């Protein structure tokens, strides 16, 4: 499956370089959908102070892109979502490649070293620890392609994330209340306008995972199930009616979008999780074919650079 002439070592090196580029893309270039939503917000905003803040945000994006600097200094907890085809060659090497690429990217881009020992408080200095970068695996049957999405999750917005197992009696109403209450409590702390996601499932871990999946969905994209999509629309309206606004200053949208992702529940549980993403909602995706061809669907302008 691998092109004649490319050794496994060369293949691994290539994927490692591509992963460094993926991390650069995420840190430097905000995804198009988020950028569009911010530009639209700027155009509509009437508040003088809020307009200045949005101007700072848009100027910031321009400087970051022009100078290839990380747009925010908090380059986050690094999470890789890997969807790997069962027939993708070197599936077993991906774990090592992603970790090594993270350490290299930390030095090269550079990223902020954000991996801290929970007992001693010591920073590893290269964004690699026993568990970080976190790698979320999904094996895809009958496929020989790997799709890797990286999320750089800032600490300020993650600080308000919640997970709680409600009773079935509290149910959906309890879940909706949790979203409103999280947005209310977050206020200016999460760098609004935010993206908020609600995840529902049988266990706390499932709910949290569903919520994170919601944060990965592009702004403006509705859930395919119309019942869920309707809840998203209602939550979007309700949270924006709170009125926290741009950086909590009382004018403009508090959220750019709300996404809901649902798994099934257990008869006795109704687990909910609410996750918040700052306006700097950084994510990037790359696809690797079995013969080592790499493309960046989220940042397709990078494909031309080779």
């Amino acid at each position, binding site marked *: 499956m691998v092109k004649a002439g490319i050794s496994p070592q060369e293949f691994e090196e290539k994927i490692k370089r591509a992963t460094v580029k993926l991390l650069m893309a995420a840190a430097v270039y905000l995804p198009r959908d988020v950028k569009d939503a911010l530009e639209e917000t700027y155009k509509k905003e009437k508040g003088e102070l809020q307009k*200045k803040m949005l101007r700072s945000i848009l100027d910031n994006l321009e400087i970051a892109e022009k100078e290839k600097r990380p747009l925010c200094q908090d380059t986050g907890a690094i999470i890789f979502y890997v969807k790997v085809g069962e027939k993708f060659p070197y599936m077993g090497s991906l774990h090592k490649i992603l970790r090594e690429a993270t350490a290299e990217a930390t030095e090269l881009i550079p990223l902020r070293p954000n991996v801290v020992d929970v007992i001693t408080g010591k920073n590893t200095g290269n964004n690699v620890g026993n568990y970080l970068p976190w790698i979320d695996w999904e094996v895809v049957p009958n496929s020989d392609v790997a799709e890797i999405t990286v999320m750089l999750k800032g600490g300020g917005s993650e600080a308000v994330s919640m997970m709680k197992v409600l009773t079935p009696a509290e149910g959906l109403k309890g879940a909706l209340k949790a979203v409103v209450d999280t947005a209310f409590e977050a206020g*200016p702390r999460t760098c609004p306008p935010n993206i908020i996601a609600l995840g529902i499932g049988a266990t706390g871990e499932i709910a949290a995972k569903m919520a994170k999946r919601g944060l990965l969905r592009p702004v403006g994209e509705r859930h395919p199930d119309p019942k869920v999509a309707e809840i998203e629309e209602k939550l979007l309206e309700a949270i924006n009616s709170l009125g926290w606004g741009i950086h909590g200053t009382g004018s403009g949208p508090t959220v750019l979008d709300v996404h809901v992702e649902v798994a099934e529940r257990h008869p006795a549980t109704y687990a909910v999780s609410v996750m918040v993403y700052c306006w700097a909602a950084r994510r990037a995706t790359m696809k690797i074919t079995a013969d080592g061809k790499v493309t960046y669907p989220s940042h397709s302008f990078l494909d031309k650079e080779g």
Partner: protein
Amino acid sequence: MSMAEYRLRTPVSEEEVRKLSIGDIVYLSGTVYTLRDAGHKRSLELLAKGEKLPVDFKGMAIYHMGPIVKKKDGEWEIVSAGPTTSTRIEAYEYDFVEKSGVRIIIGKGGMGKRTAEACKKFGAVYTIFTGGAGALGAKAIQRIAGVHWLDLGVPEAIWVMEVKDFGPLFVIIDSKGDNYYEQVKERIGQNLKEAYAKLGL
């Protein structure tokens, strides 16, 4: 709401700081020190023991920020430098303002009653730089004049930065004790019931 614009240079006097009101905009030049949770904690511990701090904060500005840095030809360079959430530092700030004589605090996300009290009593302001704007922040930093307490890690060390027209900084807590975010929050509290109603709660 006033929205006057000021250009200040550190060190700033108590008189200059007391002129500022919530909603005002500041562009700051001069020396600015970064100081986050761990830096505040260590500073207060040292001061309690009667020991000296590595820099003199009197009349100066602190920035709640942990930068991305790189070393080029032996010199530190700032790559990205936006604010961190200040609410975590609320526990330390009253004592720090009192004991250090700092005049301008820069962060994001807001601070609480104790900090507002300190601003009023000792003559200081809390301002925010637009959260997430790390590349824009870095452009205002002309050079790194030094670094202290690197043992705390890059984000928590004290970075001594020379800045030019760093801003816009928005005054959120002034030395009259007014807190812009507290005023917004009062309104939001009234909107909460309405938001519940929209969802049938």
